[in-house]
């Protein structure tokens, strides 16, 4: 305790494990035991706890070669890509227009932008289920006023996809905007004064002063949006239920159909593990970028 050291250096003390123990136990109960069970399911054909057959890696072979699973994987990746392509630029643009001064304007803007983030996900689904319907929804009704358009997300696969995408943009672009806004606010004034002395236009200031400083927050935003869109479930489940046909049946929706709907424990277990593997990789990239970006 008495030695002098720089304030940044944390003390080494393995007794800190006692402080972490409750977290480890509580999360292990809900994470490790279920994960072990999923592994056990994945190598057996389970009819009941006492009536089951060891099948080795058969389910993994089936699942990785199942055209439906592959299609859902492709759809989910495509969806995540589109989400990122739309939400990141749009979010940054909105952050750039958000008011930065004003005792009413700033809090009001923050609350308005954050509102979609705080709505329960199934209610987001309900909102768009209503809003996009051609008969009772303002959105669907307005789109159908355009000559030649016949929009109906319950019947047409493309319309359903667009509805889910627009819903996600509506729901999550505010997250990107808030993060980017927080990043913009952290830029010290001298940067702007320098730009002003140079006679830079507003656009040039944005492009050369603000955008480079946003790298950190944008990395967080991209990774978070990727992970969340990759496991999207509730919103499309409410709006389209994965349909029409399989048009919006993403990985989570397909998985919960196999697991809860058909109660196929083996295939669902193998599916879960492969899904989890992809998430693990993405998560490690996320963590590495977050913890190492400072160095």
């Amino acid at each position, binding site marked *: 305790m008495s030695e002098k050291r720089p304030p940044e250096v944390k003390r080494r003390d393995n007794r800190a494990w006692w402080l972490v123990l409750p977290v480890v136990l509580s999360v292990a109960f809900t994470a490790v035991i279920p994960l072990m069970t999923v592994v*056990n399911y994945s190598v057996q054909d389970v009819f009941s706890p006492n009536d089951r057959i060891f099948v080795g890696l058969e389910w993994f*072979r089936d699942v990785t070669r199942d055209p439906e699973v592959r299609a859902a994987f492709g759809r989910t990746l495509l969806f995540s890509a589109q989400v990122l392509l739309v939400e990141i630029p749009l979010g940054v643009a909105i952050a750039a227009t958000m008011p930065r001064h004003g005792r009413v304007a700033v809090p009001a803007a923050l609350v308005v932008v954050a509102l979609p983030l705080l709505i329960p996900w199934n209610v987001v689904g309900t909102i768009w289920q209503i809003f996009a319907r051609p008969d009772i929804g303002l959105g669907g009704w307005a789109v159908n006023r355009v000559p030649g358009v016949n929009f109906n997300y319950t019947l047409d696969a493309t319309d359903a996809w667009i509805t889910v995408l627009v819903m996600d943009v509506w729901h999550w672009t505010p997250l990107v905007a808030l993060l980017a806004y927080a990043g913009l606010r952290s830029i010290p004034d001298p940067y702007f004064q320098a730009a002003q002395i140079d006679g830079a236009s507003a656009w040039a200031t944005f492009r050369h002063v603000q955008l480079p400083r946003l790298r950190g927050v944008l990395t967080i935003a991209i990774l978070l949006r990727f992970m969340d869109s990759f496991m999207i479930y509730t919103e499309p489940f409410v709006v389209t239920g994965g349909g029409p046909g399989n048009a919006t049946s993403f990985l989570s929706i397909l998985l919960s159909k196999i697991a809860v709907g058909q109660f196929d424990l083996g295939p669902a277990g193998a599916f879960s593990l492969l899904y989890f593997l992809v998430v693990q990789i993405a998560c490690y990239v996320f963590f590495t970028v977050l913890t190492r970006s400072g160095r």
Partner: protein
Amino acid sequence: MLEWMVWTAPTALVFAGLALLLAGMAVWARISPPVARRGFLRIETDRGDRLYIGLVSAAVVLAGWIAVSDLSMWLALALAVVVVLVIGRWG
């Protein structure tokens, strides 16, 4: 109480192996604290990080193998072990 976990001998062995691996790493860290360095992965890693990256890569090898190839999984396992060792040594 635990019948619903439907344990099998092979999966029990896998988890026992993982637990032993973790315990081993903890003991090893006690004997000689891990040193972070930079290998062909281009990021700073200590041996725990490399073990994790190695295991995840091995899982990817196994999953990829079973998805596209009908050859024996023992070959895939051999390849996976090589991947773990290479990443652990030079990663």
